[in-house]
């Protein structure tokens, strides 16, 4: 390969594993007790990434855009089940709400970035769509999990206030405005913080990859920015949609708080 990237074989990986062995040894002798988790983590990461690497070889050869989209849809579905699993008290009908929100936000941003921003047919191949889509979905998953959890917690703790607002003639949306705002902020703060410090302390992942494969660091920076902006857009859309739709679950159409769900 002429991109300057060093070829790595499994032997190279095994040598790197030496560091984890050191960690396991230290944990053992210090009595920290995380050896088991570390070993499980290592085994899982090796298996998952080996399978991913192997899968991507096939996926990148896919010519059909529809098959690619189907893979992304499936990823969105897995993400919505994961998000529901992370909720302490998921409301009934959470999966459709989560799936619609996660898919809408990540697909819109992915389409925007690849079609308008990259504006090159190559961006519509699996080699771009799958990793970018995966990043968007993963990011949105984190955002929507944070938002849902926080929304639920705020509704529960502000139950009395919400009912007073309803009693004064506020609609459900107005009555839950404060919990929604908290949930939205909680979900977006990590992203905003990431924007603030990006590049100050560490070089972000995509940029690392590009720079190590001998790409122009300035191009790499632009890539990174486009991806960051995609993640911001995806998250804002998904979280907003997710909150609006789940609001309809927590309240009856007659603007009554369904406190049995809290």
């Amino acid at each position, binding site marked *: 390969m002429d991109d300057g990237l060093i070829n790595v074989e499994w032997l190279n990986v095994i040598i790197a594993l030496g560091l984890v062995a050191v960690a396991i040894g230290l944990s053992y002798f210090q009595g920290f007790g995380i050896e088991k988790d570390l070993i499980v983590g290592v085994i899982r990461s090796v298996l998952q990434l080996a399978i991913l690497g192997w899968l991507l070889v096939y996926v990148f050869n896919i010519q059909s855009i529809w098959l690619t989209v189907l893979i992304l849809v499936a990823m969105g579905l897995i993400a919505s089940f994961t998000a529901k699993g992370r909720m302490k008290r998921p409301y*009934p009908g959470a999966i459709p709400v989560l799936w619609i929100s996660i898919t809408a936000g990540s697909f819109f941003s992915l389409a925007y970035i690849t079609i308008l921003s990259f504006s090159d047919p190559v961006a519509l191949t699996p080699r771009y769509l799958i990793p970018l889509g995966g990043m968007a979905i993963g990011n949105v998953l984190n955002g929507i999990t944070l938002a849902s959890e926080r929304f639920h917690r705020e509704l529960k703790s502000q139950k*009395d*206030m919400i*009912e*007073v*607002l*309803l*009693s*004064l*003639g*506020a*609609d459900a949306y*107005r*009555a839950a405005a404060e919990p929604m705002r908290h949930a939205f902020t909680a979900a977006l703060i990590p992203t905003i913080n990431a924007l603030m410090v990006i590049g100050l302390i560490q070089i972000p992942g995509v940029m690392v990859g590009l720079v190590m494969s001998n790409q122009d660091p300035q191009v790499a920076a632009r890539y990174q920015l486009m991806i960051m902006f995609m993640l911001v857009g995806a998250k804002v859309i998904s979280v907003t949609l997710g909150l609006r739709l789940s609001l309809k679950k927590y309240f*009856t159409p*007659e*603007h*009554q*708080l*369904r406190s*049995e*769900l809290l």
Partner: protein
Amino acid sequence: MDVLFEFRSVSFSAPSRDKGGNSTRIIEDASFQIERGKFTVISGPSGAGKSTLLRLFNRLADPTSGDILLDGKNICEYPVMDLRRRMGWVPQVPVRFNGTVEDNLRLPFTISKAHKYSGAEIKSAIDELKGLKLLNDELYTRKADDLSVGEAQRLNLLRSIALKPGILLLDEPTSALDPETSDVLLTQIDRIQKERELTTIMVSHRPDEVKRVGEQVIRIKNGIVRTDGEIAGDLPNG
């Protein structure tokens, strides 16, 4: 008798928190009428279902079965937000919002999309509330969080009548007060009720209060409602 509310075989079960779990029956087949302009007291022991019953009036919850009529019409036929604005509701545990006491009183005027108020309208409404002398003047600029529980209860009462409702729903508004203060507040409520000709429905478990202000008494025990015009009720534990 000029009937304002009529409950017809109203039952209420709280939905289960768990999927497929059983709901809890709280109000059992209640039938009674509430007279317009009168002071009605709902009384009964703790856990009887008083608060639950009160929340049915302004549709914070709906009956599982049975009908509630307002002026002869099912309350579900009124737009729910308008219905609620016709009634002031004071929760059992006083609720304060961020900001000053005055901010709390301004809230009712700013939360409805359908009803807008000008700054002048809001100001004169708040001045009128202050004129009721329920709270000391210096309290209005204080943070609502700093109020004592008794003061917060009076703030809740003021906020609930800010929109000039014709109906007042009070859930033990004197529960956090010592006998003297609660006596003063009760007198004030009674005065407001008479002045504004409010139909007042107040939850209370204190026999002395029931006796003092109740023109009509609804007794409830284990979700079973009994009405009696007489203040000296027939349920001993009333």
